[in-house]
């Protein structure tokens, strides 16, 4: 008798309808897979997704005509009807991922500026980013543009608005009874500016914009509403300094000035004595600091007593508040949240395709596409081997496959970047010129030439071993890129992949390490840096020997001369030319290109955002740089717009 096995039983089965269908489905799937495999082309040469690195074309090409040239505060603001007030705006962002200090003057983390800018006001602010010039600066706390004395000006007299009050809530009254509801005075401005230029402060290493405030010779409160500032000489960007992202006015009551280490005042909001840093976020802005759940959510709440930029009758902010969630920052989650209207606006993190797709599906959506003032770069400690040798740094610059950075990290939507970001096209080296420069040019022959030179320089420097390279841990596209980076460094410089040691670290740890003199820590980093507005912000703090962000420890007298010169040049066109010279110097294009300051930083690429918003979201603005949340005072939700149906309460 035949042994009863699985196969005996199998062959004796009757062919039921279900089995027949299952078999047919499996066969069909198999054939389909075979067809797909058979049809898949090899490297056919068709770029189905990518832009040319110049950002033109690409996935959303057909949408370009619908993209507004700008969405900034110059757009016509539609006041909210009385019955449209209230509600909470919701979006996703890195705002709750506070990786830096709360102190508005001691942070350099872009999303933190966003939180702070709704809470603290500045003397001035930008209304447009298209040309970051004086014409686009408007008063915030100031009553009007400053009176500038001297030609060129060396003295600025600023008049404050009257009746501007600091936030006043029960919680603030319990912690800071004298501050709650107190009127903002000129002394507050003097305090905010003075502390950042104080060379004796134990926090001086954290005043990242100190090089701006050190241009001040004297600052005094003439009366409660008048400030007189004398600069040490003519400083072309000084008016901008007063409108810069972090020129926020903080009351001295929130700063812990009790003795710290060494008996000197602690001089920070980020203290563990008394109220917590979050409870010290008391400014004059349109929103209260509501609640911050680290990495999860940040809530801002309406300040009903906001001064309203001289138009109190509008009773802004219109919203009850806004909420930023930071827990689902990936494209798949964002698309789902946006479609469910759990967020009112969203943009891509890594892959823009869903944004284009949804815009094509729903043409009524407000769509916006713009360069971001921020970029990916590598910083070197130029006093550490082997990066003290400019040949090694230049070799890295030339060997870098920037187009791969654009394609892999930015899904082809990004653009290569030089020392000044493309978002600030006014100051940046013209992009057409950038694309002709070594390291950026992309034709096959040009790349071959650059890579050959890179290999020669590297070998001439003795093909040194690299120390551990520190990569930032977020956004996730940075650690994801490690493998690709190793691959092209291996191919172009001949460094064995296992000799390229990397470490993924948090920004806070990287910030500590680059401030450390040890060459064992972060002598080359790879991370995102948020960008800036004025030319001076982009170059002076980083590369001047006295610069407050000079983690390179760069001391190059020729470069210092150029950096100082742009500060004293008031003619915009001439200053722009000086800016171009500085950028070319940094890219090793001045003289023999082997100066100390050349290639101290390798700049890779800058992101372009593509965002969509539901049409019920009114008066939306979008600036390329961080720290513009005060414009949310104009935002309201149109309850009559049919698209608001289905929005969760």
């Amino acid at each position, binding site marked *: 008798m035949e*042994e*009863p*096995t*699985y*196969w005996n039983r199998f062959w004796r089965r009757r062919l039921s309808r279900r089995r027949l269908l299952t078999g047919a489905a499996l066969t069909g799937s198999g054939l389909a897979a075979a067809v*797909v*495999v058979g*049809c*898949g*082309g*090899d*490297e*056919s*040469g*068709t*770029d189905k*997704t*990518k832009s040319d690195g110049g950002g033109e074309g690409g996935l959303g090409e057909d949408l370009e005509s619908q993209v507004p040239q700008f969405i900034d505060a110059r757009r016509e603001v539609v006041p909210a009807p009385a019955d449209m007030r209230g509600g909470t705006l919701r979006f996703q962002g890195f705002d709750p991922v506070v990786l830096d200090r709360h102190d508005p003057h001691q942070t350099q983390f872009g999303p933190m500026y966003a939180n702070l800018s709704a809470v603290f006001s500045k003397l001035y602010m930008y209304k447009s980013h298209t040309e970051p010039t004086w014409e686009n600066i408007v008063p915030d706390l100031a009553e009007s543009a400053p009176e500038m004395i001297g030609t060129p000006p060396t003295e600025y007299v600023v008049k404050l608005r009257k009746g501007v009050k600091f936030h006043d809530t029960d919680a603030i009254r319990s912690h800071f009874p004298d501050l709650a509801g107190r009127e903002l005075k000129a002394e507050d401005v003097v305090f905010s500016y003075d502390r950042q230029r104080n060379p004796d402060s134990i926090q001086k290493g954290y005043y990242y914009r100190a090089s701006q405030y050190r241009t001040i010779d004297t600052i005094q409160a003439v009366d409660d509403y008048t400030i007189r500032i004398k600069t040490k000489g003519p400083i072309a960007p000084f008016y901008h300094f007063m409108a810069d992202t972090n020129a926020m006015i903080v009351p001295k009551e929130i700063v812990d000035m009790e003795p710290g280490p060494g008996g000197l005042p602690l001089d920070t909001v980020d203290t563990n004595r008394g109220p917590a840093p979050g409870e010290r976020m008391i400014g004059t802005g349109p929103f209260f600091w509501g609640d911050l759940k680290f990495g999860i959510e940040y809530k801002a709440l309406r300040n009903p007593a906001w001064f309203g930029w001289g138009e109190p009758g509008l009773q802004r902010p219109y919203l009850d508040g806004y909420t930023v969630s930071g827990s689902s920052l*990936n*494209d*798949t*989650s964002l*698309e789902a949240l946006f479609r469910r209207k759990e967020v009112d606006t969203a943009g891509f*993190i*890594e*892959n823009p*395709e*869903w944004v284009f*797709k949804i815009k094509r599906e729903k043409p009524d959506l407000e769509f916006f596409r713009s360069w971001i003032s921020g970029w990916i770069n590598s910083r070197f400690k130029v006093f550490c081997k082997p990066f003290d040798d400019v040949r090694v740094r230049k070799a890295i610059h030339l060997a870098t496959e920037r*187009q*791969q950075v654009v*394609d*892999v990290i930015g*899904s082809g939507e990004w653009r290569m970047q030089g020392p000044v970001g493309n978002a600030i096209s006014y100051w940046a080296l013209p992009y057409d010129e950038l694309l002709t420069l070594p390291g950026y040019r*992309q034709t*096959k022959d040009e*790349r071959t030439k650059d890579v050959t030179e890179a290999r020669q320089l590297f070998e001439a420097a003795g093909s040194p071993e690299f120390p551990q390279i520190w990569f930032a*841990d*977020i956004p*996730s596209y940075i*650690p*994801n*890129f*490690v*493998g*690709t980076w*190793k*691959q092209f460094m291996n191919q172009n410089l001949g460094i064995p*992949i296992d000799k390229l040691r*990397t*470490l*993924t*670290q948090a920004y806070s*740890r990287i910030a500590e390490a680059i401030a450390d003199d040890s060459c064992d820590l972060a002598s080359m980093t790879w991370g995102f840096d948020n960008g800036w507005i004025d030319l001076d912000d982009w170059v002076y703090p980083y590369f001047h020997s006295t610069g407050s962000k000079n983690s390179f420890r760069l001391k190059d007298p020729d470069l210092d001369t150029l950096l100082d010169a742009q500060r004293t040049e008031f003619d915009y066109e001439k200053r722009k030319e000086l800016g171009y010279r500085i950028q070319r110097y940094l890219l090793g294009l001045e003289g023999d290109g082997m100066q100390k300051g050349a290639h101290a930083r390798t700049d890779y690429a800058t992101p372009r955002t593509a965002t969509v918003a539901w049409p019920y979201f009114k008066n939306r603005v979008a600036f390329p740089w961080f720290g513009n949340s005060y414009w949310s005072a104009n935002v309201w939700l149109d309850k009559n717009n049919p698209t608001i149906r289905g929005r969760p309460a």
Partner: protein
Amino acid sequence: MAQEQAIPSIGPAAPEFALPHRPGVLRNVLKFIRRKPLGALGFFFVLFMIAMTLGTPKAEFGVPELPHSPLGFKLGQPWLAPYGEEQNFKNANGRLNTDAAPSTKHWLGTDGSGRDNWTRVVWGARRSMFIGLWALALATAIGTVIGVISGYFRGWFDTAVQRLLDALQSFPPLLTLILILSITPFTSQPSLLVVAFALGFVGIPQVQRIVRGVVLSTREQQYVEAARVIGATDTRTMSFYILPNIMASVIVVFSTGLGVVILAEAALAFIVPQFVPQEGASWGLDLGRAQREGVDTHTWPVIAYAGAIALAVLGFNLAGDALRDVLDPRLRVG
């Protein structure tokens, strides 16, 4: 004079004693395939996964390091991987050939960085396999020791150990893993060995529970009683009488556990990629990247990595089930 004594012969000569004919290995394999086709399929997947991890050893010795130096010597490129782990490909325009469909050159297409998905699957197998083996080695070794001692001695020691491990087991394993890996020293320098040990730690209660159950019945067997009667110490009884007789269960726990650990490692890399080393090919990490950037555009990486995880886990489960059937006499049929 010595007389030779004749050997008396009684009846006809006895026939030569012969053992029954033992079937050859191939015949046994074929018989196994015929009787347990699903188990055989499982073993095929397992063997294929093992084959994916193999590469030419290099004479570079040192401390074991996952995934490419799991035993203290370095393994070269996997034989089944056609390309390097990070090697990317360009199209005719000199741009990265990203998200390409399967072709003769790239059997499973390419990913968002222009890397060959099949190659990444093969390199990723090494990571999954060796993390799994290390984790299971730890869990099985410690779990077996705890299970044997606890089941053998019983009493207050058994109660205390079991309640402690019950408490540990009451936490969802993935949360426990995340908790362990979020300890600062581990987050500042993620390491695959730490991930393996964390996975092993989480697996200890499960292993010891099964081992203890088997020991509880084994310790009542007569041969164990006999050992005690002849004066065997507790250590000797556990080592030479109980342990060898529970090894079949331990092997089954090991083989089925490997699938669970591979799945857990992939889940961990998928959910909290920041807690695991992000370098190199990893099924969970690569799947997570493709998913986060959009399944619509990264369809082939999703199919490749999810398929690899599914087949590996399926393989270990089917193989484990078949092994249990073969090794457990109570389940033997036919």
